[in-house]
């Protein structure tokens, strides 16, 4: 069943929902962008309808609600420890289809991968319900259709924002009562069925080809172009890499807390190991690792999807104008070249 609420009514609804739920949405933060007088949009807890930035793509992904950039996971004193506390309120998140689909990837890594459940992820994940935001903007950085991430039915409510009000579709019975008495609407969320930007996913047929790609000179381009800042992976809706750090309180090393912090495979010491070895010392190596991880390795292992939902945030955040879609197309050309070379050697 669908309804149309005026903005005033939508605010009343939000007030009512806030009694039960913590509500998160993309919010515009003025002048906090990389460059002067530019804004960023990131997920924050909201109280008012007009805080929701629905006209543009958020700079940072929805995953931050579940896996914040920094979280304290437990506190310790000598041999005793206590988990950090989080709100027990369920969470409602205004989210787009790509971000909701990205949570499938996040969950695959955090819950079940290696036969292990990440408690700190799970306790957030279990509280979450989604409010699907219909996409009505055209961005040439979006390629969700190519990644099969444009459609989802994992949502409780769906919304379409209009100047004079908001359409709601109620899919989850838990929310039916909230909408009693509001006028019906014929709204059903539309999904993006075509993007301006299309990506052809590379076919890497065997290990031999993978090794040839690994040795390809194509990655050298990024030694010069990429500055290894890691902004692409922080903005990525599927990246899950993190590190932990113990923060010792004062001079007693027996008392402190353990934090989890987002990390990035693009930073130069990501592959640094004890003893000083570093497996990926150049920006090109790290770029290769990221691209193959997202467009080959993940699917090779988990079979269901690639580790990219085509949100295109990495493209928008890269200060060096490195486009992941252009990179994948370069990879396709390189595979073609290698195949031709192999054919002529036979």
């Amino acid at each position, binding site marked *: 069943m669908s309804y149309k609420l005026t903005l005033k009514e939508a605010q009343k609804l939000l007030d009512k929902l806030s009694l039960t739920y913590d509500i998160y949405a993309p919010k515009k933060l003025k002048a906090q962008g990389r460059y*002067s007088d530019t804004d960023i949009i990131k997920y924050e807890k909201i109280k008012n309808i007009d805080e929701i930035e629905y006209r543009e793509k958020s700079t940072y992904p929805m995953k931050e609600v579940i896996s*914040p*950039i920094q979280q304290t996971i437990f506190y310790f004193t000598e041999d005793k420890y206590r988990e950090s506390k989080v709100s027990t309120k369920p969470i409602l998140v205004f989210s787009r289809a790509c971000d909701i689909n990205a949570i499938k990837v996040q969950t695959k890594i955090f819950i079940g991968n290696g036969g292990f459940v990440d408690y700190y992820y799970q306790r957030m994940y279990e509280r979450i319900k989604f409010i699907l935001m219909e996409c009505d903007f055209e961005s040439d950085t979006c390629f969700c259709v190519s990644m099969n991430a444009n459609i989802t039915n994992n949502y409780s409510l769906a919304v379409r924002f209009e100047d004079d009000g908001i359409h709601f579709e109620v899919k989850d019975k838990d929310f039916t009562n909230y909408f009693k008495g509001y006028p019906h609407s014929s709204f059903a969320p539309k999904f993006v069925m075509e993007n301006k930007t299309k990506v052809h996913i590379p076919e890497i047929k065997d290990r031999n080809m993978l090794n040839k790609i690994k040795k390809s000179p194509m990655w050298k381009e990024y030694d010069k172009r990429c500055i290894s800042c*890691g*902004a692409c992976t922080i903005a990525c809706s599927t990246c899950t890499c993190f590190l932990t750090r113990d923060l010792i309180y004062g001079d007693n090393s027996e008392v402190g807390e353990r934090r989890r912090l*987002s990390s*990035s495979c693009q930073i130069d010491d990501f592959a640094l190991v004890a003893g000083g070895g570093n497996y990926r010392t150049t920006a090109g190596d790290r770029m290769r690792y990221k691209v193959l991880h997202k467009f080959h390795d993940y699917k090779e292992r988990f079979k269901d999807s690639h580790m990219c939902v085509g949100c295109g945030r990495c493209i928008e955040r890269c*200060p060096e104008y490195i486009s992941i879609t252009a990179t994948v197309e370069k990879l396709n050309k390189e595979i073609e070249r290698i195949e031709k070379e192999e054919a002529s050697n036979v």
Partner: protein
Amino acid sequence: MNHDINIKECRINCFRESKVPGEFMLQMRVPGGMIDSKYLDLIQKISKTYGDGNFHFGTRQTFDICRIKYEDIDKVNKCIEDYIKEVEEGLCDVDMDLVAHEKVGRKVNTGYPTIGARNISACIGNYHCICGNINTFELARKIEPIIFPSHYHIKINISGCPNDCNKAHLCDFGIIGVSKLVYHKERCIGCGLCAKICESHATRVLSLNKETGKIDKDECCCVGCSECARHCPTSAWTRSEQKFYRVILGGRTGRQTPRTGKMFLNWASEETLLQVLGNWQKFSSWVMDYKPEYLHGGHLIDRAGYKKFKEIMLDGVHLNPECIVAEDIYFNEIEYRSNFNVKPLSKHKKAGPGA
């Protein structure tokens, strides 16, 4: 050629005499160096009709048109009347009827009334530049009505960031856009990129704390360039929404005593900055004993001494709480003319009433 021309009047009218007898160069103001490109048609028309078809980018971002005959000056002034109206009155809200805030009754088609306050130059600033902290030409347009028209000389250079591409350090009153940086600790992943960048691009005030994995900052020596915010992958460093300004005082080039300017104000708000500049006419007229003669702004500061300068320039100004002011300034001249600074006191020019 037998000419009887009042060269000084021509110069005040922004026509500078040429080495070629009877020829002049027009200098048209472009506050902040930014203007609608439609005016290039006008420049071309004047240059082709009255000049030799060329034009020069003035070193202070004026449109300079040479080879104008003295006899044509009136016609050229008629040509630029609309430009003056649209740019000075329209864009900058200048009252062309005032000179140093006093009514003079300017007649139409008479060109520029003064040359004293020079064109305010600016880099492109945050209108385009990835480093810029402020919109430089919008600031120039706000300052224009404060200093112009006036016979008192002042050179103002505006730079969008401490890289100072527009050389705020080499003019009377240099303005640099700076930012107060905000550190969102909870978004910092401890990658240390900001510290690396600060070390190579700025003043080495950031360091990665090995114990906490967070950034330590020496607040005192931060120049407010925002390179940390520009490079941070997580938006852990952001600029404050409010704009701040650094004022570099008394720099100059010149034959006798070129020198770099020194910091007068730091972290001034726009309101403070404009209030301070509002006292410039008062200061200049006091130093010159209300007789504007041709003397560079920096020399006025030298005559009065920094303490007197500060007293008059800060008179009635409400400083924003972040703003700090130089207690004293010790300029270092490169002494092209020997003994400039060691000549007897009796030979120094005096400032103030009766000077």
